[in-house]
């Protein structure tokens, strides 16, 4: 689903309301998915929760009503950030209060007015986008601090920061400087390790030459050489 087109989950048992809402929302260029009751909505949300930007939820429905569906959405850490706008013909004040207390973003009465529906949805979407951006920022700060811990532990991979360095803000700048410095430190370490390896090889060769010289310098070895020479000359 393209990120520019908001995806709305409409939950309503009335075919007339589903038709009306689909029509009104698609006219606003929203992508619309339908569920006929709370249980179907929860199944869709658990399977594709991240795909939905907002839920429009009716109250009185078979299988699972809107109160229960709302409570389950707001109880689930993976779903609770999705704004839920109640849209119902239940007019009692206590119903409005109960839904808002359960975490609903808004409460619209049916029959809905298209202009009000549009305004409430765009308001909810704007706050969700702001929240999504804050969440992403915090996650990226987390990646930067993890990277710092990895540098200390000696296991840092500079590519781990690719998503953060692409940011155009101060956090992105910090990540770029950090990544650059970590790369330089890593290159220096690799250079040093190479030099150590080369030195070790030189040391090994010198040691071998010394051992050969020690063996060939002994009287026993010289006697062996003399006997070998005599044997060759007798042939």
């Amino acid at each position, binding site marked *: 689903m393209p990120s520019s087109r908001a995806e709305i989950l409409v939950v309503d048992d009335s075919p007339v309301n589903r038709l009306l809402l689909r*029509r009104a929302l698609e*006219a606003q260029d929203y992508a619309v998915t339908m569920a006929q009751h709370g249980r179907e909505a929860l199944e869709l949300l658990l399977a594709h929760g991240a795909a939905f930007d907002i839920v429009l939820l009716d109250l009185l429905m078979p299988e699972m009503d809107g109160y229960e569906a709302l409570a389950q959405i707001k109880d689930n850490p993976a779903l609770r950030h999705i704004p839920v706008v109640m849209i119902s013909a239940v007019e009692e004040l206590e119903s409005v209060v109960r839904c808002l207390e359960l975490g609903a973003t808004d409460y619209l009465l049916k029959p809905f007015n298209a202009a009000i529906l549009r305004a409430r949805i765009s308001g909810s979407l704007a706050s969700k986008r702001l929240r999504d951006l804050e969440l992403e920022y915090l996650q990226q700060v987390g990646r930067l601090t993890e990277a710092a811990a990895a540098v200390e532990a000696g296991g840092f991979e500079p590519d781990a920061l690719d998503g953060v360095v692409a940011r155009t803000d101060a956090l992105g700048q910090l990540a770029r400087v950090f990544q650059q410095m970590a790369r330089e430190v890593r290159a220096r370490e690799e250079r040093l390790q190479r030099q150590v390896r080369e030195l070790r090889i030189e040391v090994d060769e010198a040691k071998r030459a010394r051992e050969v010289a020690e063996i060939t310098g002994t009287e026993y070895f010289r006697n062996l050489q003399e006997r070998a020479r005599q044997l060759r000359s007798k042939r």
Partner: protein
Amino acid sequence: MRRQSWTEELRVSEQEPINRTALDDLLATTGGDPAFLAELIDTYFEDSETLLPTMRNAVVAGSAEQLRRAAHSLKSNSASFGAQELTVLCRELEEQGRTGTLGGAAERLAQVEAEYDRVRRALEAARPAG
């Protein structure tokens, strides 16, 4: 003055089963597409023909919750078409279901059925052909 009051009274008691302004608003809201309005009206008829027997069964069986749900759905659907009187009657039945006081519900249901007939005829007349 007296005569004017009498005609006003007559107009209220014999008001149109559907409010044309509400229907025009509905059409405008949904992009002014007559084919869509026809589909919506057909869907309303189909749904009502399930909801009314459900309400009848609920009243006979004394099932308040079933009555509440079905009356609520018919109320909500009817309100979208500006069927004001039917909406009011369904709201009263819904309230009876909600509070579990079903006294007089059969009579009120008969009123709902009669009013639905008027609404259906009005919507059939207003339904775009095709």
